[in-house]
Structure formats: C-alpha cells, structure tokens
C-alpha cells in the first residue's frame, strides 16, 4: 500500500500478444542477478530488446491474455518495474506473475479489450480504483477491473 495517486498517466510502449511468458520478459540465463535494479537491463532482451530502449518512465506495456505465464521468476516483474514501466495492462495475468507484480508494487491491470483498443505511442490515463482506462489519443474509454485498494 502506498500514498501514490491511483491515477496513472503514460504512453503505450508496446502492444503484445497472448501468452507472453516470463522467459520472454526476462531470460533464464540472467536469473543469477539478484539485485532488482540490475534486472531492468535484460527486459525483453531475447525477442524485443527495442522495447527496453524506447520505454520511458511511466510508460505502459499492453498485452493479450495470460501475461507472465511460465516460470515463477520474480525478476520478470522486477525488470518491468525498474525499467520504468508504469503498469502492465493485459486481458489476463498468469497467477504467479500477478502476485509478484503486486508484491513489488508494479500495477497489473486486467482489461480484456485493451490490446485491441490501444496502439503503440497512445497516451493513456488509468484510474486504478475505478477500473477505467482513458485512451487520450483515441478519445475512448476502455473497461478494466478495478484494483483492490489493498494492492494500490
């Protein structure tokens, strides 16, 4: 729990598909890095290293269902957070990743239609308590599940 405002503003750094596994988010070969800040260097390194280069503080990652499936590695959530990602918005999250994100203070927002209604570079405003995503670039409101107050 923190005093941070439950409204987040940022840009969409990437729109990804279904079943983005934690090996894609953070490769297994770097699991011996146990300083959370250093994990950020390897975010999406294998398949999409460019996401890390264009991610600005507060930017969002948008994805389809089952984001974070696979390994329980907490470095996947840590790498996103310490690379500056403001929130991950996905149609659904794999169980362990979701818990890891909450534990590390990375907002994980469930929105079944966000991937279809957001494009790279879109400006978004997320109201975490209300469960609403405003796509300012497209002037539309996208439904999301409100985040439990204990997780904000």
């Amino acid at each position, binding site marked *: 729990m923190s005093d941070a405002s439950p409204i987040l503003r940022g840009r969409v750094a990437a729109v990804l598909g279904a*079943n983005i*596994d934690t*090996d*894609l988010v953070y*490769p*297994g*070969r770097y*699991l*011996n*890095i*146990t300083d959370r800040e250093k994990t950020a260097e390897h975010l999406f390194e*294998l*398949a999409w290293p460019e996401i890390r280069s264009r991610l600005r503080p507060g930017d969002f990652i948008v994805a389809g*269902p*089952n984001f974070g*499936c*696979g*390994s*329980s*590695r*907490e*470095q996947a*959530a840590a790498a996103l957070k310490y690379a500056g990602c403001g929130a991950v918005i996905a149609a*659904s999250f*794999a*169980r*362990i990743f979701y*818990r*890891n994100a909450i*534990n*590390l203070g990375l907002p994980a927002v469930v929105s079944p239609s966000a991937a279809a209604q957001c494009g790279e570079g879109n400006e978004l405003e997320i109201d975490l308590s209300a469960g609403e995503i405003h796509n300012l670039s497209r002037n539309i409101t996208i439904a999301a599940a409100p985040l439990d107050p204990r997780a904000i």
Partner: protein
Amino acid sequence: MSMTLAEKILARASGRSRVAPDEIVVADVDLAMSHENADLVRKAFLEIGAPRVWDPEKIVIIFDHRIPAESEKTAATHKAVREFVRQQGIRHFYDAGRGGICHQVLADNGHVKPGMVVVGTDSHTTTHGAFGAFATGIGATEMAGVWVEGRLWFKVPSTIRIEAEGEFAPWVSAKDLILWIIGKLGAAGADYRAVEFDGSAVRRMSVASRMVLCNLSMEMGAKVAFTPVAEIGPDPEAEYERTLHIHLGYDIPEPQIACPHSVDNVKPLSALGEVKVHQAVLGSCTNGRLEDLEIAARILSGRSVHPDTRLIVIPASQRICLEAMRLGYLGTLIEAGAIVNPPGCGPCVGVHQGILAAGEVCVSSTNRNFIGRMGSKDSFVYLASPAVVAASAVAGRIIHPEAVMAKENAHV
C-alpha cells in the same frame, strides 16, 4: 459440506471447517522450498529485518539450476546462501552433489506428506500434488514473508477434475497424456484452478508418472494438481467446475508433441512431418526419473545416437543417477553416444550444459519450449516423452519409437 481436495487442505490449514472457491484464506505453510533463488528470498528477508526464520525445520533449500556453478557470479550467490543457511540453522540444505533437481530431492527424501501446504519459489512446485499436498509456486518476496511468518494468503481455487480410463497405446505415456490435455485446455486453461486427476489409468500409474501429470499441469496455469493418495481425498459429493473424461486408447493413440513455441501447441506425432534434430535432451523435473532413463536405455541399447545429433541425459537427482548407474542404464546410454550431465536442471532453463545455437532444433523431455528457453531466440524446442526423445536421438529426426525398435540398429 463436501469439499474438493484443495478446499479440504486449505480449510484445515486456515483453521476453518469449510472453504469455498474465491474465498481468501490465510493458511499455515508446512514446507517452504527454494533453489538458487533463495538468494533473492534472503535479500527480501533481510529487508524485512526479522532476525530469524519462523521455523528452520520447515525450510528446504536445494541448489539445482546452476550446479556446479557455471560462473563466478553464480558461485558468489551460492556462497551467500550457504552462509545464510548455516547462520539460520536450516538443516535441510542440499548443496551441489548432495541432491539434484529440487522437486525430485523433496520426493527422494520424503519431505512432502499428504495434506501438507507446500510453497516453493519454483513454478513446478505443483509436482508435489502427486503426494497429496497442496503445493504451489510463489515469488521470492512472498517467500520472504513465509520465512518470517510461516503463513500465506491464498484464494481458494475452483477445481477441474480429469478422469482417465483405459490402457496406454504402445510407447504412449503420462507425458503424452498431459501434453494432450494441455493442448485441449490451452496454456491458461487451468489458470488459478486446482486439477484433480483420477480414474483407473491414473491409479495404475507409477509415482514417477503421477509426478509428470502434476508437474506439467503448471503449463496450463494450474495453481495445484493432485493424483490420488490413500491418506486424503476429495469428498464424494465435492463440486467441480468441470469434469473431463479421457479414454487413453481412443483419445491418445500415439505420442504427442508440443511444437515451438508454446506448450499448448500440441500435435500427434504423425501430424508433424519431417523434423530433423540437432540435440535431444532427456531430463528435468518433468522426465528425468528412473523409468525415463530405463525406457531410453531400452531404446538405445545396441543402437547409437545419430551422427548429426547430440543426446544429453541428466538424471533428476544423485539418487536416481546412482540407481541408473547400478542398473546399467547410464553405461548403455554412454555406449550409445550420450553425454551424461550431473543431476540438476541442465539446459532446461537456458543457462548451461547444452545451449542451442540459432537455427538448431531440439527434441526434449523437459517442460517448456518458449522462444529462447534453451538458448538462441532462433532455436526450436519440441517437447516429447522420454521414449520419443531417445528414438529421435537414434534417428536424427522426431520419430515414433516403434519405427526405431523395428530396425536392428543405427540410423533409421
């Protein structure tokens, strides 16, 4: 009120008479397991500032992902964990050479008992449902909380019941059954849910095969999975989200293969076409047990690994390695041209002992075929049973074991 096995165990562990799906309960943890990521847990534990772990007898730490240490960086984290273990009086510590893959070591040493709540900082902790435990993977920060308090919150999962009847077709095994199920339900098909396996086919399976079912249930998102044990079970009138009935002979007449790059991309072997393999891997927490080495030795006996293929064999634990040596399996495999790696996770996590180059194809008895999982992002991993892995190593391409066994020797 009737309860599923997951509900029953969570009710007991949270001191309630009954629980229902979607309730959140705080349950006492009976066993907390970590591997090398104990170093991450250790750091979070020190941040919390508690002087001692809640119960050193209930913590088990097993090195497996990087043994022996493959780099100076890893050696340093191993060292830090060893010092922590000593300082906290954690007796159940299995260093390199003393254990093997964490899930097999828990089984080999009888750490898990029916009805326990087991958490591990490894997603494949679901394996221990084969011993009737509510066993699930968690992250390192949560584990630090467990080390301090000995309890954790859980959302009570709903349960999918899977009943399997009938006999396996020749060369078809528990691995093929669970791959087939994952192919049907999808990578998120059991997300947040418990899975109960039962039926006469499951009840006839070896413990090793039951561990395969529970282990790979993780790949459809399961929170926990169970096979039947004598000591504890679901109530007869328990309510299930859904029930699947499978007849092995009809539904799964041939080996199943999970094609790149997701575990639910499952095809029957005959639908595969020609797939040449540069590497074959037999091992992991999924399929590195004695029965897996036995079937590979049977297939490779008097035959040899294809000249264009490397076969890497990794017994799941020191105990299995020793037993396989005594029974002659390792000798047979080495004579056939296999590399035998020390017990541990080997190349499954993409760290060492058999990393793939760009363009290379691997057939593997492991559990994940994600992009870059075992090396280059441009490599390809096909998941299969130990029998298919061994046969494919002989043929140099993915093949039905029957085709290899039909020939006297060598290159099919």
